[in-house]
């Protein structure tokens, strides 16, 4: 089966190298991929890895917070036209980002965010609104309306109800959304390559692609780089796989 072969091959990446260079099996290629090699003249991915951390963590937190508020309002405080607006919002999840890149770059350079990590954070938060809102809205739809009504009768306002009733029971949805957003932001390439042209500012996936695209870098170093760059999302998957699953199925709309 293709999948099994594929997975095995992924592990065999190391095996093949072991057969080819049995005497030099060491952490050498990982160190090279991480720190780069001055003599061969290529950059390592270590600084880009930290760029990705500084990008993905705040962007994930911000978009989870926004998604939670949106989902709360759109499921428990529906106003007229809320469903139509929600559908318009959802469309933003599916658009090819190519169709917004040109004005995006223009705008970011005008407001001085072009080529910066904050610029990328901003972009990911904005284009994360549809999916995070969707997941939270679906989750809050399962919260009984009586809970909110009861709090209303007790005199709580919209914000009070959110803080004391809704937010404390939102943790499962936060877990799903944060894992989803972290994974997609970490794995993103398109926004990274467009918004941050300078290698020193680029996130890790762009750096990995550069590393792999350069002919002076050996295959084993490329594979080591791929493994290093994938490590955080692999870790998330192994540790929090259950929530990862739920995010996938939530991302498939009502499937």
């Amino acid at each position, binding site marked *: 089966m*293709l*999948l099994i072969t*594929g*997975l095995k*091959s992924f592990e065999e*990446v190391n095996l*093949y190298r072991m057969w080819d260079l049995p005497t030099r099996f060491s952490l050498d290629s990982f160190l090279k991929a991480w720190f780069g090699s001055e003599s061969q003249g290529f950059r390592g991915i270590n600084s880009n890895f930290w760029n990705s951390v500084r990008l993905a963590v705040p962007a994930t937190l911000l978009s989870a917070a926004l998604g939670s*508020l*949106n989902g709360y*309002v*759109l499921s428990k*405080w529906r*106003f007229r036209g809320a*469903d139509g607006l929600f*559908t318009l*919002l959802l*469309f*933003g999840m*599916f*658009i*090819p980002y*190519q*169709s*917004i*890149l*040109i*004005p*995006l770059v223009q705008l970011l350079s005008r407001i001085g965010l072009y080529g910066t990590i904050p610029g990328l954070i901003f972009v990911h938060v*904005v284009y994360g609104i549809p999916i995070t*809102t969707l997941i939270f809205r679906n989750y809050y739809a399962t919260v009984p309306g009586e809970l909110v009504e009861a709090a209303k009768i007790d005199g709580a*306002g*919209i914000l009070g109800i959110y803080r004391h009733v809704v937010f404390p029971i939102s943790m499962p949805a936060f877990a799903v959304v944060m894992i989803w957003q972290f994974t997609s932001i*970490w*794995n*993103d*390439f*398109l926004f990274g390559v467009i918004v941050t042209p300078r290698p020193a500012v680029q996130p890790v*996936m762009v750096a*990995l*692609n550069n590393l*792999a695209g350069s002919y002076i870098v050996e295959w084993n170093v*490329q*594979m080591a*780089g*791929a493994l290093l*760059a*994938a490590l955080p*999302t*692999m870790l*998330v*998957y192994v540790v929090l*796989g259950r929530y*990862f699953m739920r995010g*996938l*199925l939530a*991302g*498939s*709309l*009502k*499937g």
Partner: protein
Amino acid sequence: MVQTKPLAAARWRSGRWRLRNPDRVIAVLLVLPSLAAIAVFVYGFIGFTAFASLTRWDNLVPDFSWVGLENYFRLFNTQRFQIDLRNTVTFTSLFLLTSLALGFALAVLLDRRIRGEGIFRSLYLFPLALSFIVTGVVWRWLLNPGSAELGSTGVNLLLDRVGLGALKSGWYTDPRIGIKAVVIAAVWQMSGYMMAMYLAGLRGIPEELREAALVDGASEFQVYRHIIVPLLHPITLGALIILGHISLKIFDLVVAMTGPGPGFSSDVPALFMFDTTFRGNNFAQGAGIAIILLVMVAALIVPYLIYSLRTEVQR
């Protein structure tokens, strides 16, 4: 004019506004920033791109002189774009068919509650945690045909070792294969997703239904053909939508794995758009490709969104 103010104040005091409206107003205020952001960054930007595609903006200096549909006519007459569209059709049909079939087969197998199901499920889903860039880099290595001097590598080496050397091929370096090599990697990454969706669907089908049909003398195959598959239609539809929009937009995987390939044999519109816009600075043409991409995706997504909005309102 003078009277409106006290009137509003009276209404305010009368309680209708005081009791209900503050929360209503706050509700709208809470979602307003997000709605405004989407209005500008999705719809406004699409509008700008559509406009730019109708202008002569073909270098770094914006030139908004109107040329009508000229960019589109030129695009459809460009050989690279024609190849791209053909590649998109090839890629999408092969990718969709294979992922759905494989996902369904895996789900049926796992549904038999075989031992170690959890392990298999985790294994199949694992590629989803990876970036298309990682997948692309790894598969580029796996499907690297190697060279005459140094011998085979990756999959070809594997084929050599198990005595199937005849199946060796140039993979993505062979223009006749081109984009189909990318399909292999994409299927590897996405069929686990389809498996998860189908598995969830299969688990939702009551066991009695199956048993009743078997008692009535239906064969195992007939049960699947006439009962299970029709019940899974909504899932297949959702899966087609998800895979379809990913497939039309495919970019990262192609960049990391093959690039445009020999004779653009693995090129796709998204890659052409990137090249022409951000490397060639032909913004009008890039905008044109982007709009064509958007139209293709919208043709797939919009009916689905309207359909799910309707069914939700009915509920």
